[in-house]
């Protein structure tokens, strides 16, 4: 019985998804799917919180090990992924109806992809890790292709699918090599083999490590493995874009932390001279810089947000590199940043959705001209989320950046911190450009102006995100404590 309780976040999400599917196909006029999906997500998240409060040390989770590790790290990510999923399904509740895409599969895929994401965050073995990764990725490919009649959507989905499968294959090959060298797929046992010097006796383990890291970097869309991101994000329906930017990326970072810190977390693999941190640091710098420079040159706000999500992956990688000095601090910083990033990004995409309607979509900067006067409430919410993404106090994004930068300083990575800081200043440019268009420009006479859609779902999602952004900005302590507690999973 306690085992059922330990698995309840998974059971609730999976069971709820199945029930919703049955309800959808057997009811005459399916409606309220968005609300139902949101409720399933929230219930699953609530069970994770309950498990956290009950204390996982009292649960018989040992028999699930190593397939599913139920620890505080898992629970934190369960809550985060469910929050992202819930907000995304609220956005979809407005968007899909408005754009006449309202088909129930969207919600089912959303639920099962999140299920995959939770598998990914909790996997303690390469086998379940790969299963979760594929479950989540397949869902994301399908969501990208959801606007079927749009060539953009098809193009983005095809690129995403081909490159994604290729990256999965590379990663699988790396897993095979590591398995060949260490004789185990269990992350912890692989880690033990690495700390006993499997690399010197079987150098193929090292090649395996490199291939796995490449796969991980692809999944978090770090430069130079980011090519699919702008097209996939632009082609996908906007709620799916928000979902991918938030849930898929968070789960990928959870996987990255778990793999790098558990399996490849020995002194040798994490050393600055012979390990993965310098490569990751270089990629972090490359990711931030390239993404920020390209983002500044976009005409489409949606595409700008896509590049912005790549840039955020760069800041997060800075946080991962800190693991060189302190695994716990690194994990805590990344986890907290992901929480702040989740609410701000969903909010920004949500505001973009709310500003447009069928035939009068808000896509480019010009569409946003004069929005500040016409629709002050939405413009204000949008500004809040953009400030948060830029890292302006007192919003959530400020503290996210603050903790990562401080962790990098504490570990002596001054140059990395300075580069990251310069990049956030560049980033502020294109976020503020949206504000300039909203408040200081008037639409060209005769130009098509974006007309906001009427949707209570989207408004609710925006309101929730705004509350979270402000709450995390004004009182970050509670969430930060939770993130630090979650990071103790990686205590040596």
């Amino acid at each position, binding site marked *: 019985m306690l085992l059922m309780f330990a698995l309840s976040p998974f059971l609730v999400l*999976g069971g709820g998804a*199945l029930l919703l*599917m*049955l309800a*959808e*196909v*057997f009811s005459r006029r399916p409606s309220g799917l968005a609300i139902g999906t949101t409720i399933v997500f929230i219930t699953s998240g609530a069970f994770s919180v309950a498990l956290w409060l009950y204390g996982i040390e009292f649960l018989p989770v040992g028999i699930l090990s190593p397939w599913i590790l139920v620890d505080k790290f898992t629970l934190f990510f369960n809550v985060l992924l469910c929050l992202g999923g819930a907000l995304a399904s609220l956005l979809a509740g407005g968007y899909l109806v408005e754009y006449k895409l309202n088909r129930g599969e969207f919600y*089912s895929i959303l639920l099962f992809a999140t299920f995959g994401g939770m598998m990914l965050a909790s996997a303690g073995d390469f086998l379940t890790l790969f299963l979760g990764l594929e479950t989540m990725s397949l869902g994301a490919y399908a969501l990208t292709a959801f606007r079927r009649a749009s060539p953009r959507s098809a193009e983005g989905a095809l690129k995403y699918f081909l490159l994604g499968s290729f990256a999965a294959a590379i990663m699988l090959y790396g897993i095979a090599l590591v398995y060949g060298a260490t004789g185990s797929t269990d992350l912890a046992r692989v880690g033990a083999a690495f700390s006993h010097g499997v690399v010197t006796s079987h150098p193929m383990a090292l090649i395996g490590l490199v291939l796995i890291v490449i796969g991980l970097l692809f999944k978090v869309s770090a430069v130079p493995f980011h090519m699919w991101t702008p097209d996939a994000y632009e082609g996908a329906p906007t709620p799916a874009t928000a979902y991918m930017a938030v849930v898929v990326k968070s789960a990928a970072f959870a996987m990255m932390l778990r793999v790098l810190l558990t399996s490849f977390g020995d002194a040798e693999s994490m050393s600055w001279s012979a390990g993965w941190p310098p490569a990751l640091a270089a990629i972090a710098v490359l990711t931030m810089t390239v993404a920020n420079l390209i983002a500044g040159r976009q005409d489409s706000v949606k595409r700008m947000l896509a590049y912005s999500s790549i840039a955020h992956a760069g800041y997060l990688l800075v946080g991962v590199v800190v693991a060189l000095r302190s695994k716990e601090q690194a994990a805590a910083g990344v986890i907290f940043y992901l929480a702040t990033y989740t609410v701000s990004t969903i909010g920004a995409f949500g505001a973009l959705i709310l500003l447009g309607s069928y035939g009068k979509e808000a896509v480019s900067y010009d569409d946003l001209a004069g929005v500040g006067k016409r629709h002050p409430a939405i413009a204000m919410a949008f500004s809040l989320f953009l400030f948060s993404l830029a890292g302006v106090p007192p919003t959530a994004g400020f503290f996210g950046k603050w903790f990562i930068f401080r962790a990098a300083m504490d570990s002596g990575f001054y140059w990395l911190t300075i580069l990251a800081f310069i990049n956030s200043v560049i980033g502020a440019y294109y976020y503020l450009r949206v504000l300039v268009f909203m408040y200081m420009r008037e639409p060209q006479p005769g130009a098509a102006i974006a007309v906001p859609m009427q949707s209570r779902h989207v408004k609710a999602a925006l309101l929730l995100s705004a509350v979270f952004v402000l709450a995390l900005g004004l009182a970050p302590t509670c969430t930060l404590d939770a993130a630090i507690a979650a990071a103790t999973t990686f205590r040596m």
Partner: protein
Amino acid sequence: MLSTYAPMFMIIAIATLIAGLFYTFATVLGPKNPTPEKMMPFECGSDSVGSRGVKLSVKFYLTAILFVVFDIEAVFVYPWAIQFRQLGWFGLASMIGFLSVVAIALVYVWRKGALEWES
């Protein structure tokens, strides 16, 4: 290990040999005197029009992909069926858990009309 399969490999070898012999004899020994008329594509006596590729409905594709998915599901059932007695109630429960998910997928597909040809 491989010796267990020796008969199988022998059958494969003999089959390949016989087929190869027939093919070689037919190509080498058969009389050939091609004329332009003989080299033309034959389409019921009329000249062929249009491209070779036939545009098929995406329904074929959907059916094929659903087949692959349920095929993979069936793969998991084989080993369970072979070991049914030894696995006992635990095996049965696991399989029911798995199959009920897949069954719901089937019901979903059915009700959505993805198995219907006309829609």
